């Protein structure tokens, strides 16, 4: 007990030998992003681990929208937020209804719908993008933010329904039966029994859809193109159009854009991890 044995030390050393490179690999691109954001323009490229004169000047420029690429920063941030929140809410509403109907009300044809949803889940997102883009054109929705919201709901809903169905299948039937004995209607059952019991899974799903929409780039730049309607990632992508892009401002804006999802993830981590992995582990 006095000193750790040689074996314990070598085990610890081996673990550190994995852990340290892993930490560097994981954090380097994110740290690089952060470093650019707090560096003055001239010294951003110096390759130093910490700038000589760290500054918040880049943030001021971004917040005041003082660059050609940033003229609509606040509006695009708002667009991102709006689209993410509406997508999250709509997905939650649609998926809860569908999962409840399939799993608890055993609606006729529910299995078919579940299988179609699962099939949709397995369409690679980029494969659906082109026909989706053309279809949105036919519907006259291009450049309308509803196009992106509906596309995101379409992509988020299958997984949402599947996860909710998996968890709701585990709720005992006796609960429904007791509620029915008490004369509960289907909607009362949904609202007073199902939703409270499913709350953790619902939080996970709502967050999942919200983050999916916030993070989306491909569909956003396909479906929206006006500077005033696009989301922030599309605005970031526009920086790439020019060779003399102000990289320090791009990185600063990128950092601001990356913070909310990271924060949300850490706040809801418990729900997210269990909600999102339990289905997969069963498979």
């Amino acid at each position, binding site marked *: 007990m006095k000193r750790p044995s040689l074996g314990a030390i070598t085990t610890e050393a081996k673990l550190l030998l994995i852990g340290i490179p892993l*930490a560097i690999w994981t954090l380097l691109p994110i740290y690089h992003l952060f470093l650019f954001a707090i560096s003055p323009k001239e010294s951003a490229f110096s*390759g130093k681990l910490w700038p000589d004169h760290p500054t918040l000047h880049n943030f001021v420029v971004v917040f005041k929208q003082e660059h050609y690429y940033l003229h609509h920063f606040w509006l695009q941030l708002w667009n991102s937020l709006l689209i993410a929140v509406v997508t999250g809410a709509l997905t939650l509403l649609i998926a809860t209804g569908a999962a409840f109907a399939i799993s608890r009300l055993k609606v006729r044809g529910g299995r078919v719908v579940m299988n179609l949803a699962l099939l949709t889940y397995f369409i690679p997102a980029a494969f659906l993008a082109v026909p989706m883009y053309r279809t949105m054109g036919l519907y006259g929705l291009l450049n309308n933010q509803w196009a992106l919201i509906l596309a995101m709901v379409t992509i988020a809903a299958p997984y949402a329904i599947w996860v909710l169905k998996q968890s709701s299948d585990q709720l005992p039937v006796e609960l429904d*039966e007791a509620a029915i004995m008490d004369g509960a209607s289907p909607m009362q059952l949904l609202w007073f029994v199902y939703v409270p019991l499913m709350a953790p899974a619902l939080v996970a799903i709502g967050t999942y859809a919200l983050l999916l929409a916030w993070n989306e*780039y491909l569909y956003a730049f396909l479906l929206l193109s006006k500077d005033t309607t696009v989301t922030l990632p599309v605005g970031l992508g526009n920086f790439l159009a020019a060779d003399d892009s102000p990289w320090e401002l791009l990185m600063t804006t*990128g950092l601001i854009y990356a913070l909310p999802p990271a924060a949300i993830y850490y706040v809801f981590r418990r729900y997210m991890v269990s909600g999102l992995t339990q289905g*997969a*582990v069963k498979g």
Partner: protein
Amino acid sequence: MVSTLTLPESGAVRAVPARRWLTPWQTWGSILIVPYIIILILFVVYPVAYGFWIARHPHSYVELFDDPIFARSAVNTLVFLVIGINIKMVMALLLSGFFIQARTWIKWLSVLFILPWAVPSIPTILSLRFMLNPEWGVINTLIFRITGEDGPNWLNNPTIALSMAIAVHIWKSLPFWTLILIAGRLAIPHDLYESASVDGATKFQKFKYVTWPSLRTLYLTSTILSMIWTLGDFNSVYLLTGGGPADLTHVLATLGIRYLRLDQVDMSMAAIVVALPFVLPLVFFLMKRLSK
């Protein structure tokens, strides 16, 4: 399938056997499921059918196979899937073993390790892209400082550029799959390991006879699911290389968008149709596995 569902299942007769025949339940069930069915028809069924309709002309396929960029993209996609995904999944498998070690610092590391997956890809991929910049990027600056020689022109060589795109993909999605496999490992009953220890099993034997048999199915499912998702991974390639140099690093996901921009939607859809014979068996496998 509908008819089998409406048949009363004798085994499942519960306290309220007539429930599914009671109209309020079916009515409300229909009302609740209809919004999703509308979404499904408007934004999945119709676009997919429309896509096939666009891809109906044989000459699109002739043109497609004449296009050297398509052949190159198909090979790139295959490399991306077969090499990239397998490296990623083996890494995830090994790392899941690392992360279940009971150490406080490993717990903290696992919290940080999730970051690449938790943050949006655009800022981090652009950050990586800038790190790889041959003149000002931090990597070549360091190479120059240490060796006194110029580093490689990372994104101008198609082989290195594609490898870097694969690395970016791994960087981004490794945490997720590690998390899945950690959950899988934690679900293995602990007494299996204890009895293996009693029998004097080595670490490798424990892995071979306890861990792997329990994880095998999950590992295979994860690999195939990851392949399908990676087919749709547009960002790793587009944001890092943009398909360049000289359109040599495209994958199917970015090629489709390239054709769309060139106003050759039929080619874009034809490329997807050509990929279907390879994708559908994977989808079929996953459907069987997950639709229980």
